[in-house]
């Protein structure tokens, strides 16, 4: 495509000592990798381990704090994304970013025309339609991208990257949320692609895709390289299994939390002044539908959470877990169905009203307020409580997470991911809630931190807090919850007690994809 050296001796991509730091957080730290021509490299690791950051650095969306990137023997470290794309580096976004107000075909044409402004119209169209055909989007060619549901948007990401006729293709979790059969198709597609492009880097949660597509595998954790080598070998290693599958924790709760538990009691039980008898439905969803614009994410959810219960919602990426959480907390207005709190239908109530009903949410991605200090982040949620009451609650939260007391004067986002998550949990507690929705709190956290968090959750539960846990991490959720619902494609596919679910084969199928 352009005059860069093509001889096979030069590896397609060489990244040396790549680092990306945000303030104190080291998203990527000293990662080096070499991609010989014709290889398919898989990158795995817990969410938030820095995989997407890595892609960003390679694709040029992010400027590295340190390190160099050579593509095809040329140093491209300084080049902006557009120039790298023109050299033939194509990428997809984990959260799809299609051009929402253009048709699917136009999305591809954009890539075509940016490369060859004077390409014959017909040729361009044919090329696009060809790609749409392969990616199974042909039927949607003239739809506005806005109208596509999440999974198809992910397809569009791939298609758009292909329209660039890339030599190196970076795929970021394109398999997420696919069911088995779809995974099969995707694998076929990736294999076909591997023959066309000169190199392929795949970030994937779906182990089956990793196994069947990637020759080489790189495991990232906390932004550092954890392991590297032939896929089979790497996957076999205990360490990797531990880190990645997130089963690294000892089942028992560390003792220090016991102390906290008593404090917690003060925080939570006050919420049930007339000592609500356990088992009264606190939250009830009836045939709930919701979505964004035309994309319907939730299609008929029925769910009951009783006081004192710990309910877990499991499910693949894009199954609608977080949407469900947002609907409950009033951030998204359901398109149909009922949202009952204490038996009263609250559809249409604003988030702050829901919050004041004693339902608080520990939001996905923490959503800490950067301009507010740690203490202020906590106080904010205390709302109209009296000064004395506020400081009482502060102390209790500090009791649970002593580190927050040390950092109380700091900016909320200046802390590490784990500490921020603690802050988020503390903040959810400050309103003396009756029910807390924990949304993906384990996202990209060190196992040890996860242990602390889940210990805290256990303590809260012991203290009698009702909780709804939305989780990626099956094991932990199962350990904590007494009732579990597994979501798939916007509906609840499987329900039961933790024990029932635990040994249910369907779970593995739905969640990780049948491990052969």
């Amino acid at each position, binding site marked *: 495509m352009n005059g860069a050296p093509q001889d096979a001796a030069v590896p397609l991509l060489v990244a040396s000592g790549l680092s990306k730091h945000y303030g104190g957080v080291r998203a990527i730290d000293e990662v080096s990798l070499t991609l010989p021509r014709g290889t398919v490299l898989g990158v795995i690791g817990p969410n938030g381990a820095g995989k997407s950051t890595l892609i960003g650095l390679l694709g040029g969306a992010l400027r590295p704090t340190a390190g160099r990137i050579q593509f095809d023997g040329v140093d491209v470290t300084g080049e902006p994304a557009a120039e790298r794309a023109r050299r033939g580096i194509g990428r997809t976004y984990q959260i799809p970013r299609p051009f929402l107000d253009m048709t699917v075909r136009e999305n591809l044409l954009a890539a075509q025309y940016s490369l060859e402004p004077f390409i014959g119209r017909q040729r361009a169209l044919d090329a696009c339609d060809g790609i749409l055909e392969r990616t199974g989007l042909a039927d949607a060619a003239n739809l506005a991208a806005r109208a596509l549901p999440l999974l198809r948007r992910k397809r569009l990401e791939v298609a758009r990257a292909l329209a660039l006729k890339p030599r190196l293709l970076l795929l970021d979790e394109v398999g997420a949320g696919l069911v088995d059969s779809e995974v099969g198709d995707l694998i076929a597609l990736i294999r076909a692609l591997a023959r066309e492009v000169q190199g392929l880097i795949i970030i994937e949660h779906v182990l089956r895709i990793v196994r069947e597509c990637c020759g080489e595998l790189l495991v990232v954790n906390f932004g550092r390289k954890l392991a590297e080598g032939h896929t089979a070998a790497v996957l076999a290693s205990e360490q990797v299994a531990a880190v990645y599958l997130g089963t690294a924790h000892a089942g028992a709760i560390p003792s220090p939390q016991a102390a906290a538990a008593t404090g917690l009691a003060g925080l939570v039980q006050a919420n049930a002044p007339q000592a609500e008898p356990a088992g009264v439905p606190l939250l009830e969803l009836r045939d709930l539908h919701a979505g964004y614009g035309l994309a319907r994410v939730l299609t008929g959810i029925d769910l009951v959470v009783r006081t004192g219960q710990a309910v877990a919602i499991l499910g693949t990426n894009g199954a609608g877990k977080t949407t469900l959480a947002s609907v409950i907390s009033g951030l998204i207005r359901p398109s149909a169905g009922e949202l009952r709190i204490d038996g009263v239908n609250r559809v249409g109530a604003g988030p702050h009203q829901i919050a004041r009903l004693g339902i*608080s949410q520990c939001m996905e991605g923490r*959503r800490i307020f950067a301009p507010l200090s740690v203490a202020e982040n906590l106080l904010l949620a205390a*709302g109209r409580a009296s000064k004395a009451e506020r400081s009482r609650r502060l102390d209790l939260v500090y009791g649970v997470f002593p580190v927050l007391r040390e950092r109380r004067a700091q900016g909320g986002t200046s802390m590490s991911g784990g500490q921020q998550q603690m802050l988020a949990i503390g903040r959810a507690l400050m309103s003396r809630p009756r029910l807390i929705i924990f949304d993906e709190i384990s996202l990209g956290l060190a196992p040890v931190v996860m242990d602390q968090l889940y210990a805290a959750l256990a303590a809260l539960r012991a203290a009698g807090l009702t909780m709804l846990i939305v989780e990626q991490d099956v094991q932990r959720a199962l350990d904590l919850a007494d009732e579990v619902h597994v979501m798939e494609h916007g509906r609840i596919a499987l329900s039961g007690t933790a024990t029932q679910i635990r040994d249910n084969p369907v779970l593995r199928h739905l969640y990780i994809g049948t491990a052969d």
Partner: protein
Amino acid sequence: MDLQTVTDSLVSGVLLGGILALTALGLSIALGVMRLVNLAHGEILVGGAYLGLYLLRWTGLDPVLGLLLIGVLMAVLVYPLHGLLLAPLSGQGLEAPMMTMFGVSIILQNAFLLFFSADTRSIDRPYAATPVHIGSITVPQIYLIGFVISVIVIVLVHLLIARTRFGRELRASAADPGAAAANGVDVRRVHALTFALGAACAAMGGTLIGIAFSFSPTSGASYLLTGFAIVVLGGLGNIFATLVAGVALGLLQSLGGVVFGDGYRELAGLVLFLVVLAIRPQGLLSGRGS
């Protein structure tokens, strides 16, 4: 032009800058918190000046003493506007609210014309026309008074935003409305109050302007633009930065005045403004971009 003159005009530039900062404060808060380009800011400012004028005429209350009252009055007057005009437009991008406020501005202008006639007014106070000597420097008393008041008000607003619950809710709503709401903040109410707060500051600044200079139904526009310059210099919604930017602009304007003649003071200010935009889009002093 001798040194005396230069120092005098530079000092008065600084003092005036403080007043300008006060007039820009409301604009800054609205932009930072509600992402509202308030094109009616100038008219609100002029409205404040008229409030001061008639307060003096009817009650004989000195506008400087009654300044807080004026602010409160204006806040009460505009508070409903938010719920009526702006709240329904939330999530419609920024032109809709912007043009709504423009509509408000022309309505206000004509209301002024109708009620107060097109005459140029000025709030006639003795201290507006008497010099004050600080060492060898001579500046108009009103500049000094205005500066002190402006700084006090700005500090108060800063405390309000930095220390109080409302302040927390305001900053939270600005940073992440969704999360704020999920934590029990009534974002809509916070916005309405912010809007009113901004109007109050504008009104107080307007009164000071009305004493120091003169005003007419149409004199809002120029203050709107200086306001924008200051806001962007300081960075959106950054209180103290706004003060610094105001002073910087005032100083630069009088520098421009001294060097090129008074004709060029505002131009000098705006040129600096554009330069800063080109180099530091996120504002002269704010650390973070928007």
